[in-house]
């Protein structure tokens, strides 16, 4: 039985729990993680959307930041959406307030598309998908630069909005708010591959 932990410090946690449960189709359980000690027992992790300044402060003030890093270093798959994509990065443009975890070789522009007025839905062309994916961008960040080991999956204009590096998949949009679970399916495949390789 797979166990997926959704880091529940702030943001749309219940939406992520429900979406992951739908994707799992009974093959595992999903838990909202509010306290230290649970992450080490998880086979996969989700860092949800919310306010990155708030989540970053909460992470830093608990042992969960270290637990999360340790899990990712050990190869536990991590799905990081929106604020999550900001937090896993190595660097944030012009930003001192949020301390990223430095897990992914990316440089981030926060609020890359402007205020909520400029939030948008778009049909994305995604590497490996045979038809467009409707993505929901809410005051979204974007990846403005990637290191060599990062696989770019989708762009909006010049901005990178979906990428993968080793066991991390980072999305600037919200797969938990729509019914299309193709990114969740990739994530579950990452879990299976890790189980097979005995990681």
């Amino acid at each position, binding site marked *: 039985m797979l166990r997926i932990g959704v880091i529940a410090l*702030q943001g749309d*946690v219940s939406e992520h729990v429900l979406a992951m449960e739908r994707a799992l189709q009974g093959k595992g359980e999903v838990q909202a993680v509010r306290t230290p000690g649970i992450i080490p027992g998880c086979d996969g992790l989700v860092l949800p959307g919310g306010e990155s300044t*708030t989540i970053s402060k909460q992470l830093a003030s608990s042992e969960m930041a270290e637990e999360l890093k340790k899990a990712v270093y050990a190869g536990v798959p991590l799905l990081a959406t*929106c604020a999550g994509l900001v937090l896993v990065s190595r660097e944030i443009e012009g930003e001192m307030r949020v301390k990223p975890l430095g897990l992914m070789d990316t440089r981030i522009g926060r609020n890359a598309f402007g205020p909520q*007025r400029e939030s948008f839905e778009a*049909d994305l062309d995604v590497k490996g998908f045979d038809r467009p994916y409707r993505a929901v961008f809410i005051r979204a960040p974007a990846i403005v630069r990637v290191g060599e080991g990062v696989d770019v999956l989708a762009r909006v204009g010049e901005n990178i909005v979906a990428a993968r590096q080793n066991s991390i998949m980072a999305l600037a949009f919200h797969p938990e*708010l729509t019914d299309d679970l193709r990114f969740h399916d990739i994530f579950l495949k990452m879990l299976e591959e890790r189980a097979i390789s005995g990681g």
Partner: protein
Amino acid sequence: MELENLRFGTELLKRGFAKMQKGGVIMDVTTPEQAMIAEEAGAVAVMALHAVPADIRKMGGVARMADPAVIEAIIETVTIPVMAKARIGHFVEAQILEAVGVDMVDESEVLTPADEFHIEKTKFTIPFVCGARNLGEALRRIKEGAAMIRTKGEAGTGDVSQAVLHMRQIMGQIRSLKGMDELQLMKTAREIEVDLDLLAESARIQRLPVVNFAAGGVATPADAALMMQLGADGVFVGSGIFKSENPAAMAQAIVQAVHHYDDPQLLARVSKGLGAAMKGLDAASIPEAEALQTRGW
């Protein structure tokens, strides 16, 4: 992906924005300096207004939208979302706030109402939050396009009792819908003057169809945790922070209290040594005509 094929202002984007605020504290601020304190404390958003509700109550007169120059200065200062209040029914104030670039408009009973009708919120690109005392008010606002609901409570009092009353009222009414058949739902929809589909959805999911925060009288970490335990998705704090003795400490403590609302040990720790909370005003002592919560319907 070409930039011209984007869709803006959809209901999914509006309600989605509100969902990103869940588990957070939204703080009233009147200056960029206060906004910085709020962000530093871990607020998920700030609400820009010209005076906190306790002062609005004291000053009397007509309360209006804040000066756009101040709102802009606050937007420049923080990276978290900035919300601002428009008068009930004053759609031009809302248009101005949208033009200035605020992330969400609070159509608020704290300001002096401009119309017997509320704003047609579906016509805007940015989302709205509205106050409600009961399920009828909440679902009418959602039908008009509100992407988020907050209890009205009694703003500017520091007395949490009215927020508790309104949260219990909304939750209780939703619970009472459980097991109703179509005809009973139709009858209830007529009685409380709401859209049947929204009522049926609330009955099915056993909560409001949008994010529901607590507001109107939250003044301490314990108040904030109380509202969370009663089922709020997050908390607005108005006068409670910048009318307290030590705003930065109070702001941080309330953020912690919302995150750890069900951990009494931690609540005890963060409640220690915060200095005096806002002085406050017993909501029961306010004459009916001076109550803010009766504005709107």
